[in-house]
C-alpha cells in the first residue's frame, strides 16, 4: 500500500517537474527581457532568422559575420535561427513565429506578399525613422531599389542581396559540337537537338522547380503580361515545355530529380545548358567554361533581353520595447549592411542594394552575371512574389503534367487562377 502511495507521489512530482520545465521554457524570453532591462550589464541575446543555412552559398560569410559581430560587441549574443528556404521551411518558420507572437529580433526574409503577412502582426519596424536618425547609413542604400521594395509606401524590408536568373551554358560542349551561343531561340533549339543526338543532357532541370517556367513566361508575354497572374496568354509559354520534353531536352528523370541534382549534372559537364539563379553562379564560377546569357526570345514573344531579377528578401527588425535589445538589433542590422560585411557577401555572388567594399576575388562568371543585369532592358520579380502560395504550388506541379502531355496549359492556368482567386 505504502509502495503504491509512494509511486503515485513520484508520478505526481514528475508531472509537476515536466510542467514546471515547460512553463519555464515558454516564459524564458519574457524573463530574459525583464532581466535585460533591470541590469544593463547582462548579456543581450538576439534571435536572428535568415535563409543563410543548409547549402546556401552565403553560409560561410554569414557564420564569419556573426562571429565578428559578437567579438566586436561583447555583451551581445546571437542565436542563429537560420533555416533553409527549401521546401518552404523558412516561410513556415517565420509565419508560425508571427502567428504565435514569437518573431525573431532580426530577420532576413522575403518581401512582396510576405511583407503583408508580417505587417499584420504589427510587430515590424518601419525603417524611415532610423534612416532619418542616421542619414550616412541611409545613403549607403540604392534609393531606386529602396522605392521598389516598399510595401504600402513604407519600408519594412531593407534590400540587401539581389538575385538574377540566367541561362548558364557550357562553352566547352558548345565548341565541341560547333554550336552557336544560345542567345537566340533558333540557336537554343539547335543546341538541344544536337546534344540530344549526342547523348548529352541538353538542358539540366528538374520539372519540379520554377526557373525555366519563369524564363519562358517572361520571354513569351513580357513584363506587363507577367504581372497578370495565370493569364491565358501564358499558355504558349507552358506549351513549350511539352515541345522541349518531346525533343528530349530534359534529363530522363526530370520528373523526380531535385534542383541540386540537376545543378550537379550541369556542373559535372554532363549537360549543355541550365537555367537557374545567381546563387548557383558562385559554385559554377570556378570553371571558366560556364557562361551566362538571358533566356532567348521565344517565337512571337515580348520579353527580349529581360530578366527575372530583384531584391526578393531584406532585413526586418522586430519592434522591441526593451530599448537595449532594440539598439542591439539595430547595431546588428547596421553591421550586416556595412560596406565591409556586404563586401564579403558580394565576393560570393549576387548584386547588392548597399555599397560594398570591392573584392578582388570576383570570378569572371559573376562579373558576366552582373553585366547581364546591367544590360537587361527590364526586370521582373518571380511570379511567386505576388500570387498565393497554394496556387503557385499547384501551378508548379502542373508544369510536369503539361510536359508529360497529361494536362493542357489552359487547364493548369485555369486551376491556378481558381486557387489564386480564393486566397488573394
Amino acid at each position, binding site marked *: 500500500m505504502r509502495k503504491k502511495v509512494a509511486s503515485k507521489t513520484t508520478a505526481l512530482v514528475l508531472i509537476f517537474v515536466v510542467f514546471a520545465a515547460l512553463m519555464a521554457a515558454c516564459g524564458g524570453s519574457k524573463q530574459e527581457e525583464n532581466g535585460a532591462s533591470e541590469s544593463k550589464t547582462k548579456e543581450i541575446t538576439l534571435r536572428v532568422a535568415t535563409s543563410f543555412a543548409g547549402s546556401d552559398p552565403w553560409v560561410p560569410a554569414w557564420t564569419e559575420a556573426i562571429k565578428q559581430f559578437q567579438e566586436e560587441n561583447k555583451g551581445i549574443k546571437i542565436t542563429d535561427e537560420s533555416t533553409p528556404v527549401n*521546401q518552404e521551411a523558412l516561410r513556415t518558420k517565420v509565419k508560425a513565429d508571427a502567428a504565435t507572437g514569437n518573431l525573431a529580433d532580426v530577420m532576413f526574409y522575403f518581401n512582396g506578399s510576405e511583407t503583408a503577412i508580417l505587417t499584420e502582426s504589427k510587430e515590424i519596424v518601419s525603417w524611415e525613422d532610423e534612416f532619418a536618425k542616421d542619414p550616412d547609413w541611409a545613403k549607403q542604400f540604392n534609393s531606386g531599389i529602396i522605392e521598389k521594395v516598399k510595401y504600402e509606401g513604407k519600408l519594412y524590408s531593407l534590400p540587401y542581396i539581389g538575385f538574377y536568373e540566367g541561362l548558364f551554358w557550357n562553352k566547352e560542349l558548345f565548341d565541341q559540337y560547333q554550336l552557336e551561343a544560345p542567345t537566340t531561340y533558333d540557336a537554343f533549339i539547335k543546341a538541344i537537338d544536337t546534344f540530344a543526338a549526342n547523348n548529352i543532357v541538353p538542358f539540366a532541370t528538374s520539372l519540379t522547380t520554377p526557373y525555366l517556367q519563369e524564363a519562358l513566361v517572361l520571354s513569351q508575354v513580357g513584363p506587363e503580361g507577367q504581372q497578370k497572374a495565370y493569364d491565358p496568354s501564358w499558355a504558349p509559354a507552358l506549351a513549350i515545355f511539352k515541345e522541349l520534353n518531346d525533343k528530349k531536352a530534359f534529363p530522363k*528523370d526530370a520528373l523526380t530529380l531535385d534542383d541540386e541534382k540537376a545543378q550537379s549534372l550541369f556542373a559535372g559537364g554532363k549537360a549543355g545548358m541550365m537555367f537557374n539563379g545567381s546563387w548557383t553562379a558562385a559554385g559554377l564560377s570556378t570553371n571558366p567554361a560556364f557562361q551566362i546569357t538571358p533566356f532567348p526570345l521565344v517565337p512571337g514573344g515580348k520579353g527580349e533581353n529581360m530578366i527575372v531579377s530583384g531584391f526578393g528578401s531584406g532585413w526586418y527588425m522586430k519592434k522591441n520595447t526593451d530599448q537595449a535589445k532594440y539598439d542591439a538589433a539595430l547595431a546588428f542590422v547596421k553591421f550586416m549592411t556595412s560596406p565591409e560585411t556586404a563586401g564579403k557577401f558580394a565576393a560570393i555572388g549576387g548584386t547588392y542594394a548597399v555599397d560594398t567594399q570591392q573584392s578582388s576575388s570576383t570570378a569572371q562568371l559573376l562579373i558576366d552575371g552582373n553585366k547581364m543585369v546591367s544590360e537587361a532592358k527590364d526586370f521582373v520579380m518571380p511570379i511567386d512574389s505576388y500570387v498565393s502560395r497554394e496556387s503557385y504550388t499547384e501551378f508548379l506541379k502542373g508544369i510536369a503534367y503539361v510536359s508529360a502531355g497529361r494536362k493542357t496549359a489552359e487547364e493548369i492556368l485555369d486551376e491556378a487562377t481558381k486557387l489564386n482567386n480564393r486566397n488573394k
Partner: protein
Amino acid sequence: MLLLFTFLLYPLVQSVYYSFTEWYNFSNTKTFIGFGNYNQLIHDPVVWIALKNTFILVIGAVFLQAGGGLVLALLTDSIKRGFKFFRTVFFFPIVISGTAIGLMFSLIYNYDYGLLNAIMRGLGLSEQIWLTEKSAIYLVLIPILWQYVGFYFVIFLTGMSKIPEDIYESAMLDGITGIRKSIYITLPLLRDVIASCLTLATAGALKVFDVVYIVTKGGPLNSSELLSTYMYTKAFNGQNAGYASTIVIAMMILGIVITVVLNKLVKKEAVSY
C-alpha cells in the same frame, strides 16, 4: 489526464475546428466555411490517388511487414545456431532513421549516379528510370517494409518465447515437428500477438511520411502521394492549413475504421497457456 488533454485531445479538437475553416499562411485569420474543405476533399483527384496508395501501403504492411516478421521469427526460432546474429541483423534497420533510409534509397534509384543503374551498366544492360508513375509507390514500399520488418520479428520472437516448452515436448511425442509444429501450435498460440501486430502495422502504414517524402516527394505526377505527404504539401508548401487539417481528419477516421475492422476480424477469445 492533463497531459493527454494538453498534447492530444486539445490539438485534436482544434484540428477538427480548423478543418471547417479557410486558413491560409498560418495567419491569425480563420474563416468558418462549413463543409467547404470536405467538399473539396471528395472532389480532389489527388486525394483518391493518395487513398489508393495508402491502402497499398496498409496491405503491404500487413502482409509483408507483419507477415514477413512472422516468417522470419518462425525460421529463426527453429535454428540452433546463429540465433543472436539473425536477431541483430533483422532488427538493425529499425535503429536507422527514416530520413537516412530515404536518402539512401533515393541514391539507389537515382538515374545518373544510382546503384541500380550502376549494376545495370556493369551487366551491360541499358539504364532504367526506376521511379516512374507506375512503379514509384512500390519502390518506396521496399525501404518502408525493410525498415520495420525487424520490429515485428522481435515482437513475434518475444511472443514465441512465452509459449511453454512442454506444449512442444508433448507435440514432439505425438510426432509433430517442423512446419506442422509452426502451423498447428505456434501460430494459434500467437493469435493475440498477431492481432496486436496487425493493428500496429496498419497504424504504422497510415503514419508513413519521411521515406516517401524524401525518395519521391509524392511524385512523379502525384503517383506516390500518400495522405500524409499530400497533407504536408498542402500545409507547408501551399500554406493552406485549413484544407490540410481536413486531410488529417480524413486520415484519422480512416485509421479508426481500419483498426476497428481489423480487430473484429482477428479478435476471438484470449488464448491462455
